[in-house]
């Protein structure tokens, strides 16, 4: 077989060159008014975004900030759904709200297709991934996931307090996605750094950001080379071999999609597992009910996804317009908070309560419209198995130290420190 020179060293490796785009001034520090100066990077938001969002929904349903070069925050389900469905006026070219907007020429592909893609390219890039992430396809990961969850709990033997975020929730998606991409499981700790670099280091100086992103892409390129040398039955080899419009994918498409699968699959699911355990540790009535009636787990999982939806996306406004009462400018950011949509009382009964046997639950935790999370079936499997195994092995547990719980900053929210007393 001829060498695949798409990935030759120095052949336009993404992340190596200075990315083209527009930078805005970094503005950090306490928020003066959430309606006019919001920031999802401040500690008050991490600690409790729901109170802020509920307040905004009442008094200023499309909030504004001049930070990040200008951004809007809708908090009504109706507005969030309308933006998710409107790919004509809102672009997915950059989906992590930061002080850097990628160049407009990157549309409709974006840096990490298909999440960063707009129609019509989006459909074709997404179609490549869908078969690997159907419910049936991800069932193949279930036995190994279950065994891995048991092995994590085995390792708690003899301890009375464990960190359920760092020592349990975190490891599960890392292991699953490493298996699917065909990366060495021992590289897991590096993945956590990549995630933090991309999703939490938003207000770092630009040069730092560029360096951190190139660290990820250098790692991915090394994995591509390893797979070119030793092709195997995994998603990396699949992407290297995949074709679109009669030819192999651009190297930036291959590495961009690998980055997406690695990053998007990790702290999202980690957050969902952690937030569910946090809820049960702080709501003994729900824990007792679930342990007594494991048949409730299916609806409980959906309710945890609704109430503690970990993922907020971003969009860029395509052109100046008056939209639902505000004047949006081209290139304004939209912070697309599915968590806020999921707690809108106009859409959900008892929206602010966690009702583990909720029967009607059209939540938007995995997004709405064409960008529905491609990994949603995998995430649901991991969340269900992680909770099943935990509840079977550790049916009684409590929060050890409320003050020690920490939550991630930025667009993905979940506990990062969660000390639980398990004996």
């Amino acid at each position, binding site marked *: 077989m001829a060498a695949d020179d798409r990935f030759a060293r120095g052949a336009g490796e993404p992340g190596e060159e200075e990315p083209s785009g527009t930078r805005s001034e970094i503005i950090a520090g306490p928020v003066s008014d959430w309606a006019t100066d919001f920031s999802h990077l401040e500690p008050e938001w991490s600690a409790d975004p729901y109170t802020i969002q509920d307040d905004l929904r009442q008094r200023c349903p499309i909030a504004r900030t001049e930070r990040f070069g200008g951004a809007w925050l809708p908090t009504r389900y109706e507005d969030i759904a309308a933006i998710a469905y409107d790919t004509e006026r809102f672009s997915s070219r950059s989906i992590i709200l930061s002080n850097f907007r990628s160049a407009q020429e990157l549309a409709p592909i974006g840096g990490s297709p298909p999440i960063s893609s707009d129609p019509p390219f989006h459909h074709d890039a997404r*179609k490549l991934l869908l078969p690997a992430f159907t419910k049936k396809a991800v069932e193949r990961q279930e036995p190994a996931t279950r065994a891995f969850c048991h092995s994590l709990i085995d390792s708690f033997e003899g301890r009375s307090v464990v960190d359920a975020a760092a020592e349990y929730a975190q490891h599960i998606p890392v292991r699953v996605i490493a298996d699917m991409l065909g990366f060495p499981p021992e590289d897991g700790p590096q993945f956590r750094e990549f995630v933090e670099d991309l999703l939490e280091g938003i207000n770092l100086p630009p040069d730092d950001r560029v360096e951190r992103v190139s660290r990820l892409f250098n790692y991915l390129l090394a994995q591509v080379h390893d797979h070119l040398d030793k092709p195997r039955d995994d998603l990396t080899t699949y992407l290297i071999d995949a074709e679109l419009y009669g030819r192999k994918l651009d190297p930036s498409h291959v590495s961009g999609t690998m980055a997406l699968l690695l990053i998007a699959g990790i702290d999202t699911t980690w957050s969902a597992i952690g937030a569910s355990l946090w809820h049960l540790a702080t709501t003994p009535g729900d824990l007792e009910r679930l342990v007594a009636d494991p048949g409730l787990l*299916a609806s409980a999982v959906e309710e945890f996804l609704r109430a503690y939806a970990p993922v907020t996306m971003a969009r860029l406004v395509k052109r100046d317009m008056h939209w639902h009462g505000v004047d949006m400018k081209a290139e304004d950011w939209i912070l697309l908070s599915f968590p806020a949509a999921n707690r809108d009382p106009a859409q959900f009964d008892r929206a602010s309560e966690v009702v583990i046997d909720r029967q009607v639950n059209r939540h*938007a935790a*995995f997004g*709405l*419209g*064409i960008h*529905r999370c491609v990994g949603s079936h995998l995430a649901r499997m991991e969340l269900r198995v992680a909770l099943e195994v935990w509840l079977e092995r550790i049916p009684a547990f409590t929060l050890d130290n409320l003050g020690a719980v920490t939550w991630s900053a930025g667009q993905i929210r979940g506990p990062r420190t969660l000390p639980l007393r398990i004996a």
Partner: protein
Amino acid sequence: MKVQINSALCQGHGRCYDLAPSLFGEDDEGYGRVLGDGTVPPGQEEDGRLAVANCPEYAVQLLEEG
């Protein structure tokens, strides 16, 4: 009673085939599909209603006959 999926709206969340696996299945890309002609056998009406009530895209519909 019959169920149907509006394929223009379905995005493959899979709530219908999770909640009512005897009425719905998934295709090779994870989009929902109605099994058979969509007729809901007696005793499975509740599953059909659950599938409708939990589709985030409002793509699953129930046709009450008569």
